[in-house]
């Protein structure tokens, strides 16, 4: 069952126990088959676990879609550079995304089991679960589950009697979207400002505390126990050839039934919006969809008959990202929503790179004056120019993310901007 609604067409694997408070406890989780995969992984050993995940074609669910098994192979294969660290990215703060919060608060042991298998695979001694500071309840629930796992000998110096020691620590952020970027997350864990690092060196070479490190998203690791238990072939049998397995789709905005739904990748976006989520509320019509969280290009209503997998969404000119689908009805002011998204990036820019620090602030300022009816004729070209200068010019992609909705909305909804520019209202001499 997804949460808070369910649909019989779903393939519920990660979300099978959403809405079931009993599944939170260690006892309840084990009764539902939990920690069987960890036992199996301990018997398989690191190399075979990595192979299995590699063969499953699992791709990172944090937005970039990088193959998980391949990422794990970048880690040193021996213990010459111990300690290794596994960091779990639960800094979910992409506008539109609310899947990791549900995974953390309904199935904390699914996450811990995946984390321990991941740590085993990359020979990590210590797992840090980086939860965003606002997530008090999910953090408390994970904390309790860690406590239970230690008490039962599942985490700690002797994982299930194997002689392998893996510590698990919960670490809270303190309110910074940028810490979801993997190198910023490492800096934040180390007690620094959450500013992204230049790559290379990559985390597998020089990561947290200078040691080999892998960073995985919550949803990615939650899929791992299922892959180990039921095999790579089973996992690959779901989804498409290049986008295997299931994905949580986070549906928000002007929908009748908002919520998380789990489907194999490749599910049709139009069907998801109209059939599963009941369509647009208040009898209105669809205007636009952001398919992968606020950082990706906007799709217009005519562009939604597409399969939701990494390749198909890219072909449609956007990105699957975190599969956070934000749906807007025909009463939505596109300029207002784009302005709000850009203000978000202006607020969250870490300030390291000039194109991002200045660009996001200027774009927000220009969009505010267009929205207020004080726009200048050259503003739209200035926005395009700023966006181009903000793409591919910075350490991380926050800057590109701010430019994407501006460029796509200017292309697809230019009329709205022009209507505001032509509005017959007093224009301020200086903005």
């Amino acid at each position, binding site marked *: 069952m997804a949460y808070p609604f369910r649909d019989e067409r779903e393939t519920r694997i990660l979300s099978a126990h959403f809405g079931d408070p009993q599944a939170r406890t260690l006892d309840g989780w084990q009764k539902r088959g939990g920690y069987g995969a960890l036992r199996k992984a301990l018997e398989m050993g690191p190399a075979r676990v990595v192979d299995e995940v590699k063969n499953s074609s699992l791709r990172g669910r944090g937005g970039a879609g990088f193959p998980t098994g391949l990422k794990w192979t970048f880690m040193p294969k021996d213990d010459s550079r111990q300690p290794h660290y596994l960091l779990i990215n639960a800094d979910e703060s992409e506008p539109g995304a609310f899947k990791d919060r549900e995974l953390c608060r309904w199935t904390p042991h699914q996450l811990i089991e995946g984390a321990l298998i991941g740590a085993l695979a990359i020979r990590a001694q210590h797992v840090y679960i980086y939860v965003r*500071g606002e997530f008090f309840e999910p953090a408390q629930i994970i904390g309790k589950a860690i406590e239970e796992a230690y008490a039962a000998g599942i985490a700690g110096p002797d994982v299930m009697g194997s002689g392998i020691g893996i510590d698990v620590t919960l670490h809270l952020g*303190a*309110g910074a*979207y940028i810490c979801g970027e993997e190198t910023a997350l490492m800096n934040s864990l*180390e007690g620094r400002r959450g500013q992204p690092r230049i790559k290379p060196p990559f985390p597998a070479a020089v990561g947290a505390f200078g040691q080999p490190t892998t960073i995985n998203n919550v949803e990615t690791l939650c899929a791992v126990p299922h892959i180990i238990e039921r095999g790579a072939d089973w996992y690959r049998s779901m989804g498409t050839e290049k986008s295997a397995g299931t994905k949580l789709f986070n549906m*928000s905005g002007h929908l009748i039934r*908002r*919520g998380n739904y789990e489907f194999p990748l490749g599910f049709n976006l139009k069907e998801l919006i109209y059939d599963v989520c009941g369509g647009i509320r208040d009898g209105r019509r669809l205007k636009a969809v952001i398919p992968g969280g*606020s950082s990706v290009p906007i799709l217009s209503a005519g562009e939604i008959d597409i399969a939701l997998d990494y390749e198909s969404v890219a072909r449609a000119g956007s990105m699957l990202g975190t599969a956070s689908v934000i749906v*807007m009805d025909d009463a939505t002011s596109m300029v207002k929503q784009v302005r709000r998204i850009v203000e978000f990036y202006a607020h969250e820019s870490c300030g390291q790179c000039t194109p991002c620090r200045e660009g996001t602030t200027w774009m927000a300022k220009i969009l505010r004056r267009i929205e207020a009816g004080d726009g200048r004729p050259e503003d739209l070209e200035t926005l395009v120019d700023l966006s181009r200068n903000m793409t591919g010019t910075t350490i991380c992609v926050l800057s590109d993310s701010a430019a994407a909705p501006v460029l796509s909305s200017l292309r697809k909804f230019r009329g709205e901007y022009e209507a505001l520019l032509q509005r017959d209202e007093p224009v301020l001499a200086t903005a």
Partner: protein
Amino acid sequence: MADERTPLGANPGHAGETGEFAHLSEADVRGSAYVGRRPLEGGDHGGVCSYPYQLPNRQPDAPLFEGPYAKRLERIRSRYPDRRGPLLPVLNLAQEVRGQLTPDALTRVAEVLDLAPAVVRGVASFYTMYNTRPVGRFLIQVCTNVSCNLCGGDEVAAAFLGHTDTEPGEISADGLFTVIEAECLGACGFPVAVQINDRYFENVTPADVPGILERLSAEARATGGDTG
């Protein structure tokens, strides 16, 4: 005290009431029945972390890192390989006790971790959850980012500001409330999401606002203590 963080009853619409899980209580959905009370000195493993929220009864002049907090500090330190790693959890701990991070609290954190005060201030000023200025007893953060915005985030924020008679970031005359707009709280499926200290309120509409404020005021009267 730290262990009295029970959910406020009658949340205007916690996620469980939204859909097909109406049989679940708020404690079921929030997991509060499962988690139970947290000791001040922290747990041994999972419970070792600290949270960047103030206690219901914050003590602006309380000594930092003494008594049970000294124990918690040591537990936090034991989880990190160097002396800087624990900085965020230790800042959280200071804010939990005092409600805000004053310059002397930051200096004390620097002393305890043997870091330069400038380093500590630089980090504290980077993260939005660290209150380097005083806030009301209840810090009300209304999500106005895109998914909540589409469903009335601006209106809910305006209602909180109007009913508390404040501008964003100000403390209300009774010392109880500070209202700010927040960036995405990660509860986009349950708009409008509002975070009040450590609690999430979901599916909030402007009509819910007076009731929420009344209940918070009643809670403050019942627990007494400093109202800042």
